[in-house]
């Protein structure tokens, strides 16, 4: 049976169709989820896509965190439901305290969109098991508030426990501490990524096909997981 991956749409979500397209290209069924509907419709995993939920006014992700669908997702995530937050999704996961730290204004104060090399640091998560640890991949970044910050203790702990999922290579696009591009929770089911793997899944429209690995990873993960 094909895996069913939910893609949440908040008011102001923008990369939701792109995430759904990437899910389909990876071979799964993309299931649209709506911010105001707490029901996850039996999906096997959830993607929180990029965009500007609720305009990203106040702080990115601050308002989306209170959407009804987020309550169900937060509860599910604590029970092992795989959740991938991309860009705005990452911001929402931090705001919801499903991931530590916060994403702040880019140090150079500009929105920045460029093709970015990353090193996948951890292949042990539900969303990165198709990669080799240390593998270098090319994926677009595009954000205005992608600068990851956390206190030193948290950063040390993330490093020590292998929870830094990806790091920026050849130049840090936003000033993130320790070049962090993505992190995971302790269980490895919740991953937040600032870069946009869903924009690197087709040769015609992306800089590479490297992004696909994040979506095939979840299929591998689900195939291995007990039903």
């Amino acid at each position, binding site marked *: 049976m094909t895996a069913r991956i939910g893609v949440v749409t908040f008011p102001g979500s923008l990369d939701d169709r792109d995430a759904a397209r990437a899910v389909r290209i990876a071979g799964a069924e993309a299931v649209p989820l709506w911010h105001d509907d707490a029901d996850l419709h039996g999906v096997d995993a959830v993607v929180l896509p990029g965009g500007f939920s*609720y*305009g990203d*006014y*106040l702080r990115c992700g601050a*308002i989306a965190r*209170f*959407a009804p669908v987020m309550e169900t997702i937060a509860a599910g995530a604590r029970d092992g439901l795989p959740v991938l937050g991309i860009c705005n999704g990452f911001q929402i996961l931090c705001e919801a305290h499903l991931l530590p730290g916060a994403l702040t204004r880019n140090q150079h104060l500009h929105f920045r969109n460029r093709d970015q090399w990353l090193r996948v640091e951890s292949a042990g998560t539900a969303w990165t098991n198709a990669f080799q640890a240390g593998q270098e991949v090319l994926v677009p970044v595009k954000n205005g508030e992608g600068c990851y910050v956390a206190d030193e203790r948290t950063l040390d702990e993330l490093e020590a426990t292998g929870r830094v999922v990806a790091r920026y290579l050849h130049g840090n696009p936003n000033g993130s501490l320790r070049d962090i591009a993505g992190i995971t929770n302790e269980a490895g089911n919740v991953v937040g990524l600032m870069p946009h793997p869903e924009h690197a899944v087709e040769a015609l429209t992306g800089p590479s096909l490297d992004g696909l690995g994040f979506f095939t990873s979840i299929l591998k993960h689900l195939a291995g997981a007990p039903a």
Partner: protein
Amino acid sequence: MPRVVVDVMLKPEILDPQGQAVANALPRLGVTDVSSVRIGRRIEIEFAGQPDLDRAREIADKLLANPVIEDFSITVVDAADVQESHP
């Protein structure tokens, strides 16, 4: 050390999408008795010596606020004396 605080707010007749978004989100937190939210900037300036109000006013007018859409106000605060702070 005393510091100068410049508060910059959108003029009342100018749309404040941020404030509106927050106001609209409040009912979800169970807060229904708020009639309006406006969001501006608070800028804390520390001078090397004595805080200079005129200087601050000039900075505010030229750099910190856009007089076409914003108003500002200036106060001197004693840093020791900052109000109840969380957390």
